[in-house]
């Protein structure tokens, strides 16, 4: 990379966890002044990457993967145990918005304190003060104590101060998770401006959409180690799809498992209307039920009966199984009844499929298109789904 803003080489961080916690003198004396024994915990191991100046760099990973530790090392809050970090230009020393905000101080005092913590000099704060308050839209509340502020006002104030911290490299930890949509948009507008000004942003987030939208390159951490580093789209694919620990075994559609006579079989299914009569047409929103009959060779007690509703093209609308209710089917044969007191299907043709499988998801028997029914739209709404709504007219404000 021609002009890296951040260069991390072989960064490692080990925490040592005392096996017996000995935080007080008494514990230390009681243990006879012995050296404490430790468990070592490698929070980060051999992390190397470069962040190009003026780019946005994402860091993703599940909880405990070391993201925040890495950010703290970049910010200088933790010293690394191994490796080196070098930063070109001034790095924002903070990870969170509103650090040091005190509820008992006025907005004015908090701005001065917070900005000073972020490295601004008093005359710089004086110069930027009105702008900060205006951006936060808090002109009327400058001398109110912070504890009387809503969380939204709090965040707006904090963000307005933060963007005045004159840094070349900004570190942001989950910062985008706060605030309403309008405010988040405002944040991203500022980020874009920072980018056009050649500032560098490092973003740690669980919100993959933000990472996808704003970061060119992304680092994926797992258990403190680098899993992937590269263009965001590739890294995100890897994060989302590769690491599914549990992959459900699935029989191919419309076939019986392995062609062997299944120990538990789906025999039939019925759609019942609100009066409990078999029906092919139902009115949207009316209570309904679906019954699935099964038969077993020996004992069905460990089987799970699964019901799937799909549209004619095969898109699954809904699926449910007896395991979710922790039900045990009666032995040899029986019927699972699934009741829908208020179905959400608004209109359309629905295909019913059912399957019998074991508790560990081995499919015994599967019958696609074992039944079907039509939902007729009600008078109050049309469309695929029904949802609880309310509506009213709002008069334009008086002038």
């Amino acid at each position, binding site marked *: 990379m021609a002009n890296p803003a951040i260069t991390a080489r072989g960064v490692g961080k*080990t*925490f*040592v*966890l*005392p096996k017996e*916690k000995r*935080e*007080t*003198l*008494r514990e*230390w004396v009681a243990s006879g002044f012995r050296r*404490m024994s*430790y468990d*070592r*915990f490698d*929070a980060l191991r051999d992390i190397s990457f470069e962040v190009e100046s003026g780019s946005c760099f994402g860091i993703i990973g599940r*909880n*405990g993967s070391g993201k*925040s*530790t890495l950010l*703290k090392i970049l*910010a*200088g*809050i*933790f*010293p*690394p*145990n*191994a*490796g*080196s*970090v*070098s*930063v*070109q230009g*001034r*790095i924002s*020393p*903070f*990870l*969170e918005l509103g*650090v*040091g905000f*005190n509820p*008992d*101080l006025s907005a004015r*005092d908090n701005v*001065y*304190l917070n900005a*000073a*913590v*972020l*490295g*601004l*000099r*008093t005359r710089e704060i004086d110069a930027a003060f009105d702008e900060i308050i205006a951006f936060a839209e808090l002109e009327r509340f400058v001398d109110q104590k912070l504890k009387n502020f809503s969380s939204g006002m709090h965040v707006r104030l904090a963000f307005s101060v933060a963007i005045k911290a004159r840094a070349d490299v900004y570190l942001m930890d989950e910062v985008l998770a706060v605030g309403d949509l309008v405010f988040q948009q405002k944040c991203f507008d500022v980020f874009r401006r920072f980018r056009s000004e050649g500032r560098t942003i490092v973003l740690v987030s669980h919100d993959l959409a933000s990472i996808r939208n704003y970061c060119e390159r992304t680092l994926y951490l797992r258990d403190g180690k680098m899993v992937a580093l590269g263009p965001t789209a590739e890294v995100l694919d890897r994060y989302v799809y590769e690491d599914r620990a549990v992959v459900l075994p699935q029989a191919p559609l419309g076939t019986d498992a392995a062609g062997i006579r299944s120990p538990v079989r789906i025999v039939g299914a019925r759609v019942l209307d609100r009066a409990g009569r078999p029906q092919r047409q139902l009115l949207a929103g009316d209570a309904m039920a679906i019954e699935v009959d099964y038969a077993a060779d020996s004992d069905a007690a460990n089987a799970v009966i699964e019901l799937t509703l799909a549209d004619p093209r095969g898109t699954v609308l809904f699926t449910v199984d007896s395991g979710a209710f922790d039900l045990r089917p009666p032995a040899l044969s029986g019927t699972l009844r699934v009741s829908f007191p208020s179905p959400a299907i608004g209109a359309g043709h629905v295909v019913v499929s059912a399957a019998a499988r074991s508790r560990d998801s081995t499919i015994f028997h599967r019958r696609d298109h074992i039944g079907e029914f039509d939902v007729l739209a009600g008078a109050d709404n049309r469309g695929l789904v029904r949802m609880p709504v309310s509506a009213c007219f709002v008069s334009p404000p008086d002038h």
Partner: protein
Amino acid sequence: MRLLGRRQPLVPIVDSPRPAVSSHPPASAAISPATDPQRRNAAELVLRMALTDLKLRYQGSALGFAWTLLKPLMQFAVLYVVFSVFMRISVENYQLYLLLGVLIWNYIADGTTNGMMALVQKANIIKKVYFPRIYVVLAASLHHLLALLLSLTVFFVFFFAAGKTLTWAAPLALVAVALLYALVLGLSLLLAVLHLKFRDTSQIWELALMAGFFLSPVIYPLQVIPERFHTLLFLNPVTGLIQYTRLILLDGTLPSAAGALYVTVFSIGLLAAGLWLFGRHAHLAAEEL
């Protein structure tokens, strides 16, 4: 490590080699915590933290800031009634003598207690922002120094009201205050590091302060102690600091050269030791909090 929770503080490895870091101010600060080339507003930040602490100290109370002055005065009134009226201690200028002792002792007690707790009290900032960690201890000792200077104005009101005047020795009181600050800051730095490692440092220090209150001539005049114990008493630098300030301001005389030298060396030495120990351990504060 978040999963491990607060009650399981993580102790960093200390025997691992220092990282080779180039042009990274925070890590270089791990070696010298008092400096940060990127931090241009060090003095302003420390002063702002100190003033904020002063402002927040009596936050929410009806009299607010006035407590900074009222508290030592009330303390003075109680002690004066007990020792002057009931126990009939008769020393010249006992009121002023006592008030000065109380103010200086309060500064030592409050300053060191607050300095010791500064890292813990500011943990929310320390864990989220990098700045040289010594700032919070500096701010704590400074905040109480400001309180001392404010309450000294009350002392001088009484002083002049009693018809006393300052002598040519009075400016030396500033030297005494400077040494007092060095002593308090040095103790604060040492205690802050100890408190990081052992949380019961605060309990021990509370007891030590109680003992110190009686081992220093705060309330009693030095004359009531037999002469042969005086050397022992003056080994405690607080005795010297209080007594010499009284000499300078109330009697207009100078302390002995040996005594002054002892107090100076002790205070400066303690400050140096505090800076050294703090410098070695403070960069790990964020992990131990």
